[in-house]
């Protein structure tokens, strides 16, 4: 049987959440602090701390205005956005993999990223006037939502969401929209093209406090809601029939989870572009390390995802300063080898 090959317990399966969560929270705070210090201009840790503490307490006396500008206006928002993106994409990945019952699903599998890309590229290449004066962010969000609605409509039958059909519809819509995006790119001038490339590969460089308010609210709310559903997702993993017999309203759960994770992903992709691989890789990493119980996987994916993307963003701007590389290059450069290793290690992936 399929299950017999998975008989090894995960190495950290026995570690309690009461230990692992605080450890990861500390790691996240540390990596965020370091990320706030390091960059084209490195600010000493003490100064960084003074700036952050000053803004939190409202007492900015003794803070160097130049450091304040770098740390508070520029770096802290991008570090927070990186953490939110990592956390949100990882948790959306866990949920989507569970809901469509496919280990290869990621938050973009249902066409969200291609919809967002088309919206963004349309505005970048045709100018803000293209879609009623929308900015890139809003156009990307609307593109993502239009794509997911289309995929939903095509992926259901009589109100029943069929996971395989949904994934196939997502892939097909993805290709269709990609064709449109590619055509627009061909017609773009080099400057626009560079902007498009950066957007497509994802970046948190443009983070602003204004934008963070909405993003933080959406991400924290969605994560809080999704975390409540660990037990039901465990039940869903026994199959639709058995989950029903265990008291899960499978249809409502599936639609609810898809809507919540799509909204979350749509917002993130709108502000940070197509940060690939996090939503695919972090869920598998967490499962391999901590076991498959969703009540553990969901909160741990939030934290591991946040740590990972903050670290990746840090790398992306420290490899070749003062130039920055898009996040997508690093997430995929680490993600792809990891995924290949995973494929070779776990005989159940791709074999079932």
């Amino acid at each position, binding site marked *: 049987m399929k299950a017999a090959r998975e*008989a090894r317990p995960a190495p950290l399966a026995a570690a309690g959440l009461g230990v692992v969560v605080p450890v990861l929270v500390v790691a996240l705070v540390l990596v965020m602090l370091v990320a706030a210090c390091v960059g084209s201009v490195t600010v000493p840790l003490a100064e960084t701390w003074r700036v952050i503490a000053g803004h939190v307490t409202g007492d900015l006396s003794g803070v160097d205005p130049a450091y304040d500008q770098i740390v508070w206006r520029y770096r802290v928002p991008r570090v927070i956005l990186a953490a939110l993106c990592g956390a949100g994409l990882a948790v959306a990945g866990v949920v989507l993999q569970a809901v469509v019952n496919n280990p290869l699903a990621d938050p973009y599998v249902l066409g969200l990223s291609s919809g967002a890309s088309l919206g963004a590229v349309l505005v970048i290449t045709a100018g803000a006037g293209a879609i009623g004066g929308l900015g890139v962010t809003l156009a990307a969000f609307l593109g993502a939502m239009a794509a997911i609605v289309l995929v939903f409509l095509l992926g259901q039958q009589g109100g029943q969401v069929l996971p395989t059909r949904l994934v196939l519809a997502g892939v097909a819509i993805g290709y269709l929209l990609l064709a449109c995006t590619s055509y627009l790119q061909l017609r773009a001038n080099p400057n626009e093209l560079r902007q498009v490339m950066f957007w497509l590969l994802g970046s948190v460089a443009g983070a602003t406090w204004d934008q963070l308010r909405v993003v933080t609210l959406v991400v924290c709310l969605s994560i809080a809601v999704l975390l409540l559903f660990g037990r039901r997702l465990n039940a869903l993993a026994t199959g639709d029939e058995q989950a029903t017999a*265990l008291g899960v309203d499978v249809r409502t759960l599936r639609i609810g989870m898809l809507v919540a994770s799509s909204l979350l992903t749509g917002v993130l992709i709108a502000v940070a572009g197509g940060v690939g691989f996090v939503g695919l890789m972090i869920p598998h990493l967490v499962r391999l390390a901590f076991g498959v119980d969703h009540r553990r996987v969901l909160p741990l994916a939030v934290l591991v995802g946040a740590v990972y993307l903050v670290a990746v963003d840090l790398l992306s701007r420290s490899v070749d300063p003062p130039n920055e590389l898009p996040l997508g290059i690093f997430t995929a450069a680490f993600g792809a080898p990891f995924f290949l290793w995973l494929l070779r290690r776990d005989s159940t992936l791709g074999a079932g």
Partner: protein
Amino acid sequence: MRLDIADLTVSLGGRPVVDGAGLTVPEGSFVGLVGPNGSGKTTLLRTVYRSLRPEAGAVLLGGEDVWRLSARESARRTAAVLQDGGGSGALTVAEVVALGRNPHQGLFAREGAEDRSLVASALAQTGMEGYAGRLFGSLSGGERQRVLLARALAQRPRLLVLDELTNHLDIRARFELLELVRTIGITSLAVLHELDLAVRCCDQLVVLSGGRVAAAGPVLNALTPAVLRDVFGVNAVAERHADGVVRVTYHASPLAATTPASGEPGCG
């Protein structure tokens, strides 16, 4: 709790799979649902655990229409052990059994002392108490079915629905498992593929054929030579032997099979 099904009709892909079937499972009894492949056994079962809504007819548990209940309310009354219902196998036995508490836990509920003690007693009832920390995927087929039965018991159901509980198990495990269900004593409706097991372990049988009930009642009343011939296409007879055990004896036919030797464990 007594289950009554009346005038049940279910179509799949435009074809009636269950066609006006009715049956009763009396309180505390073990009723076997038998019939050839495609006779509608599993489809009928799906309407009982609220997975497939019937087009017509009623499924009444203790006089209450299960299709008026929510999935959660229904799962507090009816537990089902289905084929391949164990998930990926990477959860521990205790985690698998704890899923049985799902219908009793709200969205914000965490596993409490009562849940843990019910999980422990369900494991004890099925003889799996030493396995709580093992991975489900590392168990043998018979052990897995016991764990899934324990999960169903952790639901504290008043009706057990079993779909081919003993499929793929060796002969000894089959008898032991069905004997276990009998001793637990919860009202049970079980789809059984093997008539040998069905006649030895069930109080009553319901024979389905083409989505209709061809015969029903105490084992020997239901499984007459005529039913065996017309429904199952075998030349056979079910009879009580001198040792008090009911066995099916198959005579020469295209589906000839041997009867189990006497002295086997369980379900006597």
